């Protein structure tokens, strides 16, 4: 039951925008809003993904992974390298 309700809700949430307003150009006034949505959400994904567990704000091994990704960006490494480095550094730090 829950599976069906959650599935339907997720599908509805994802498709509401595209089904109602799909294929249409956005009004020029709204474009800066959408442009700013990306950095706002990306930054929120980064900080919640790296610095939170449940309802706690924490600094743990994932922070070192993020530093590794930052070093890769600074060194102009490709996306793949940055992602793998973050995972590897986090995994190694957890072993120690």
């Amino acid at each position, binding site marked *: 039951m829950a599976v069906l309700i959650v599935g339907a809700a997720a599908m509805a949430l994802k498709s509401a925008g595209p089904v109602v307003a799909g294929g249409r150009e956005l009004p020029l006034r709204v474009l*800066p809003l959408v442009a*700013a949505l990306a950095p706002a959400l990306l930054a929120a994904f980064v900080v919640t993904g*790296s610095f939170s567990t449940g309802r706690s*704000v924490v600094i743990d091994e994932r922070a070192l992974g993020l530093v590794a990704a930052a070093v890769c960006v600074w060194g102009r490494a490709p996306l793949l390298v940055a992602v793998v480095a973050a995972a590897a550094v*986090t995994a190694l730090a957890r072993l120690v």
Partner: protein
Amino acid sequence: MSSDRPAAGKKAGFAYGVRAALPLCVALVAFGASFGVLARANGFGVMAPIVMSLTTFTGASQFATVSILGDGGGLGAAVVAAILLASRYLPIGLSVAPVLRGSRAARFGQAQLVIDESWAVANRGDGTFDRGTLLGAGVVLYLSWQAGTVAGVFGGNFLGDPRDYGLDAAFPALFFVLLVSQLKSREGAVAALAGAGIALLLVPFTRAGVPIVAASLACFAGWWRR
């Protein structure tokens, strides 16, 4: 890092999306498998977790549903938690609406391939999205998630905990790389700071999912000054 994302005004396309999503395949298979394992352990059987991955296709909501119900929480609590976690797809869906063309049914179908990661790699940084990249990355990530779920449901815990491999750190790393190129403009930097601040401030006080959807409001920062 211009090679890491579609440039404004240029078509990056499906193949780019596939390539951009590859770094995350392993992580999605592993977390899909751990979802399958958790769902089985919590008494969901074989079909329910697979159907859930096929339809819901957003990991956080799926984990929340099976863990709350597995811990004896009510149907209402599980559904509310899952919907809060998926609520960010309302603004995300609106932002990609202009590039999803075709009939109502086609737009509905394409919208199901939108998850945080496919949305993030398809973002051109100017308020527009690359349709091919969105769909290419979406297909790869969708298939990885389904493969992982099936493996977890039938194969059990042979992959171990994805956290042992640091795979939970792969997602913020991807988002960070994609974020950096957005920080060159003043507006982008302001929105990022506001989004990160709102999210972190809300983490201790709200239910999971709320910090993210609230952070999307940061896109209004500076908008009225135009």
